[in-house]
């Protein structure tokens, strides 16, 4: 029988990794991720989890160990936050280019300088172009379920998956979490089979220096050049849109919980005003939508769960009736706008959705935001005369800008 326990997001992630029968954990502590890896260390030490916990001298090494482990066929897991994630950056690219199905939790935290330990999503957003799948969770139940789904997705298409959730807001807040049954998870997630088997009777070099062009090997096979390998990664990531949805649908059938796959919707059937965002800010937005509805504004929420690959088609379908779209973002592409707004505007351009769009930068470095504030700024924006199709500067909420 599955059971419900009251737990933090970090405990949920750790239990998800245990249920996924992770075989190698390598991680380096950083706030707010620390209690996740501490929980895993305890589970391994007590024998409740059969895995190697490999201690390392930093995050770059942590992911390098996972890369080595995944290459030889071990299911590998790591987790980090903020500057720890950035210190991994080179190996984040390497894991994706090697097509290794590693799962990493990014417990979202603002990036220094100046130092903050508090939540925003600048850390994972800055790793957007590395070739990892990025999934954002809205509550602790989704965290445990998404870690399990992430391994299934990763091992189906051989791409690493970053499971992102808001530091402190989710990582340190306790809430009820239904723990999936072990036997059901085992059936859902078969053992990992690596795409490359290291074999001493048939030795080979993995990731040699590539030439610019295709080249025949000694057997006469015309081997991929760097560009073909990179195209295969892009093709796999685009294909992941279907895999993420399929895995989510199957998970819903088996475990009875549907987190929506690529996106999720709240009161959108008649909504003209749509709030979007990723992670807990989108959950917060559902209350803002309720407040707007009390004021007679037909509002709804489209939460983006898969940020990479970007679910263009699903978003066009969900947003085609919208009159205005309001992006709530915990990150900035400095010098332009928020990343969700940027991508969404590009995805919707020329589609049947011709809604007005406004970008809001919010909650950087843990700045509090109340649902009533979200409702208020959206209402003000809708009433503004200057709401036309042109690009407007993002509105920074709860920030002294003068």
């Amino acid at each position, binding site marked *: 029988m599955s059971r419900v326990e009251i737990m933090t997001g970090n405990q949920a992630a750790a239990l998800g990794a245990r249920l996924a029968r992770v075989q190698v954990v390598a991680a380096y502590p950083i706030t707010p991720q620390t209690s996740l890896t501490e929980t895993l260390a305890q589970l391994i030490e007590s024998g409740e989890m059969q895995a190697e916990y490999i201690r390392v001298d930093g995050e770059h090494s942590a992911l390098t160990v996972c890369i080595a482990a995944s290459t030889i066929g071990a299911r590998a897991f790591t987790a980090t936050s903020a500057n720890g994630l950035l210190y991994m950056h080179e190996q984040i690219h390497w894991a994706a280019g090697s097509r290794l199905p590693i799962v990493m939790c990014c417990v979202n935290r603002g990036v220094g300088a100046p130092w903050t330990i508090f939540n925003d999503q600048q850390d994972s957003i800055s790793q957007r172009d590395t070739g990892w799948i990025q999934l954002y969770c809205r509550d602790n139940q989704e965290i445990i379920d998404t870690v399990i789904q992430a391994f299934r997705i990763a091992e189906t298409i051989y791409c690493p998956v970053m499971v992102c959730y808001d530091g402190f807001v989710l990582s340190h807040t*306790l809430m009820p979490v239904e723990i999936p049954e072990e036997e059901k998870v085992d059936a859902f997630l078969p053992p990992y089979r690596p795409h490359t088997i290291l074999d001493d009777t048939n030795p080979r070099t993995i990731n040699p220096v590539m030439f610019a062009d295709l080249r025949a090997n000694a057997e006469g096979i015309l081997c991929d050049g760097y560009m073909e390998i990179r195209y295969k990664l892009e093709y796999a990531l685009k294909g992941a849109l279907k895999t993420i949805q399929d895995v989510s649908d199957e998970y819903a059938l088996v475990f009875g919980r549907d987190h929506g796959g690529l996106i999720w919707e709240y009161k959108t059937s008649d909504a003209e005003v749509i709030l979007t965002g990723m992670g807990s800010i989108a959950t*917060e937005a559902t209350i803002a939508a309720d407040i707007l509805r009390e004021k007679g504004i037909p509002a709804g929420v489209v939460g983006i769960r898969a940020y990479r690959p970007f679910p263009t088609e699903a978003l066009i379908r969900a947003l085609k009736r919208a009159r205005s779209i309001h992006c709530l973002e915990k990150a900035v592409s400095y010098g332009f706008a928020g990343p969700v707004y940027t991508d969404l505007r590009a995805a919707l351009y020329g589609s049947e959705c011709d809604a007005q769009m406004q970008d809001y930068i919010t909650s950087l470095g843990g700045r509090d935001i109340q649902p009533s504030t979200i409702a208020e700024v959206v209402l003000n924006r809708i009433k503004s005369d200057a709401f036309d199709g042109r690009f407007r500067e993002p509105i920074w909420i709860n920030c002294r800008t003068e």
Partner: protein
Amino acid sequence: MICEVIWHGRGGQGVVLAAQMLAEAAYRHGFRGVTATPTFGPERRGAPVIASNRISPEPIRTFAQIRKADLVVVLDESLFHAVDILGRLKDTGVLIINTNDAARYVLPESIHLFTVDAVGIAQRHHLMREGAPLVNVPMLGAVARASELVTIEDLAQVVKRKIGDDHLSQNLAALEEAYSGTTMRKHG
């Protein structure tokens, strides 16, 4: 309706554990939406610490800071000099203070004040850590008395799950004594 709770204590008094146990007990009681949140960030022994709960029949969809709570629990009355406790309590809210001198508090009439001598109860049941009385479990007993969020039985079940055998009987006895020893002060 969401009931919002703020716990005020000092680092080391078990404020976070108290909020966690209240969330579990409220879930046992039938509330589907419960959250327990510590003060985000570094914690220091002796410094003012806040933890909070949201408790609702429906799942919780907000993680924003609680501006004004329905229920405020004060584990250490010296905090009235350090923290604006009343500033984060609704005008008609419930306030529970760990004190042996309820008469010293002069409050607006609309606030429902409950008091309990949790220090005395902890001392009588030898609930001490590093020389300081452990008042978090007695204060949970007071919450059961002052609100309809949990019963004393819900709390006893959670205490049994959370507290090691060494101190279980003392904690259960302290919980009971605090429950019956919590008094509501009549105004006027």
